[in-house]
């Protein structure tokens, strides 16, 4: 494990603690420090990935180690970008630990494996996995926003004005953040599926869709998000149902994700 990667992990851990501290103590300076640390970790992480790319010549998404690390990077990246617009400070308390978990697990998994068959290095594969990872990251954030929404909605409905009521932002903001993440994630997912189909066709000529469990699950994931987005746009679905759907979608997504690396 390189020093820079260790630094990345350290920044993420510190930032996670900072965000938790912000939720607990509600002091803005803590949030600022946590945010800076997350940016710092993200920069280190970006450099690490860049170096990996130069060394191996492929986008680091070839095995679980690389993919988890890239996923963590993408989650932080998407979060930081969305944060510029939405200022949803408490969300960092979920995003930063997720990224931390990803990089820590990645650091424990075996590093880059031996040479791969040239077929795995293609442009399509890189595009396929790369976009899917960014999409997944966006969906992870949508899922977190959904979880926070459900907590806050419960607090308001049950008229319990405890710990979370004070600390969580308005329902409107949580809902918008979920929606924005969805809007970012869905085109990525769609593009990822399309490139995946093209790639599949390249390694097993003539067959776009094989109906194996992975592909079926992948298709279901896409459908769930497609329906959710459609309902939001056409019927104006928002609030609790949309939040639940976002969470369900992400659970299926996670299943698909790990299934792909199983086989």
């Amino acid at each position: 494990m390189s020093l820079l990667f260790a630094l990345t992990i350290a920044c993420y851990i510190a930032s996670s603690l900072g965000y938790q501290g912000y939720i607990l103590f509600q002091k803005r300076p803590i949030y600022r420090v946590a945010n800076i640390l997350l940016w710092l970790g993200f920069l280190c992480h970006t450099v690490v990935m860049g170096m990996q790319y130069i060394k191996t010549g492929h986008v680091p998404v070839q095995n679980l180690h690389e993919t988890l690390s890239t996923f963590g990077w993408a989650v932080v990246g998407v979060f930081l970008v969305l944060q510029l617009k939405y200022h949803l400070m408490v969300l960092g308390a979920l995003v930063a630990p997720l990224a931390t978990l990803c990089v820590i697990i990645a650091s424990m998994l075996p590093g880059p494996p031996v040479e791969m068959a040239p077929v795995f290095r293609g442009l399509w594969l890189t595009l396929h996995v790369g976009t899917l990872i960014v999409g997944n990251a966006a969906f992870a954030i949508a899922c977190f926003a959904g979880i926070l929404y459900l907590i806050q909605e419960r607090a308001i409905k049950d008229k319990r004005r405890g710990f979370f009521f004070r600390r969580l932002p308005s329902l409107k903001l949580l809902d918008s953040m979920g929606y924005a993440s969805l809007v970012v994630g869905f085109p990525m997912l769609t593009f990822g599926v399309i490139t995946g189909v093209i790639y599949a066709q390249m390694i097993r000529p003539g067959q776009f869709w094989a109906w194996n469990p992975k592909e079926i699950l992948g298709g279901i994931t896409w459908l769930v998000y497609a329906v959710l987005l459609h309902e939001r746009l056409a019927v104006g679905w928002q609030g609790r149902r949309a939040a639940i759907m976002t969470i369900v979608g992400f659970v299926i997504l996670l299943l698909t994700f790990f299934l792909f690396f199983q086989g």
Partner: protein
Amino acid sequence: MEAIERRNMIAKRYIVAIGLNHKTAPVEVRERLAFSGEDTPKVLKAMCRDACVDEIALFSTCNRVEFLLATRDASKAVEAVKDFMAEFKSTPRQTFEQALYVYHGDEAVRHIFRVAASLDSMVVGEPQILGQIKDSYLQACDYQTCGVVLNRLMHRSFSVAKRVRTETGIGDHAVSISYAAVELGRKIFGELEGKAVLLLGAGEMAELAVEHLANNRAQPIFVANRTFERGLELAEKFRGTAIRFDEVREYLKRVDIVISSTGAPKYVLVRDDFKGLMRARKNRPLFFIDIAVPRDIDPEINRIDNVYVYDIDDLKSAIQENIDERQHEALRGERLVDAAVIQFRRWFQGLDVVPTIVGLRDKMEEIRKKELKKTFGSLSSVSEEDRAAIDRLTASLVNKILHHPTVFLKNSGYKDEKSLYIDLTRRLFNLDESDEHEPEPKG
């Protein structure tokens, strides 16, 4: 210390606070003794004529009447105030004497700090009191009844109040129904700007809530009343639109916040009224604030997605939690007040003549010693005798320079003048170096 105090008995100033508030006096007594804005100048002028009253300020709100005095004879001044109140309000003394509290010295300072910081208010942390005190103080300034002591005391109390407000959460949480409604609205909608409000019925509390929402830029505002004329009246008040009561269901598709306060014996809206409504609203959230007793809005409606119903008890319990929270924060406020009282005492004690003269001499002596040391350090050829001569020269210079100021301070006029000169001296020679810049203990 005792000796010094005795010697300066004539000049020594005492701070006294006399008053009554919502805790000590029932409303019948308070309303009888309250001084209106027009009364205040008369009171100030009349009281100022009293020989033992050097400085005076008067604060009168619906919850309290407070006299704040700087006097040379505390007990006489207290009697004078009581007599004056009885006479001015033509009320026998015994009707209110029980309710009066009298604070001296540090306690009086602490009291006024606590009042200004809203730690002594009926609703702890309510922000109006500071403004009211500032206004009263300005009035006292207009009539020049405040001098060095009260001016300083009042300015300190303003800054203490500000610190308490910014450094503790004393004003953070809503403690009135309409504030609670706005706070909840914010948790649901984020921004209230542009959120349409519908008022069902009428009533003081409901109207206050609408007003508060409107102040937070919620608009447009619709008013539905059983009697359309009354509705028109209210609509005009809020610059809104009056609608007929049977149009309400139609308008539920448009509005975001409904404040209900009708005298209806049964629910005005039940769950069945919402069939298809949320779809027509594209699921935009709808927030009901039901202030009516008996209730207007069926609580079942709260179970519909994106609809939130709060009745009067829900709002009250929300407020109670916030009141508890404020009490907790108030403890931190008390600590800030304690620190400020000590600081003020230091300044106030410094207003005595003797410590000032001693301080002045010490300061001069210190400068003299320091400069001598510096000079002797660079003059190696000077003999012991010459050194003694230079030393005597500088000592007599200091004595000569300080002679007149000392005499002046000891003999200068009485009443306010003395404190003024002492304060001026202390500032001119920077005798209270630590006073303003000393970091206060963090709470």
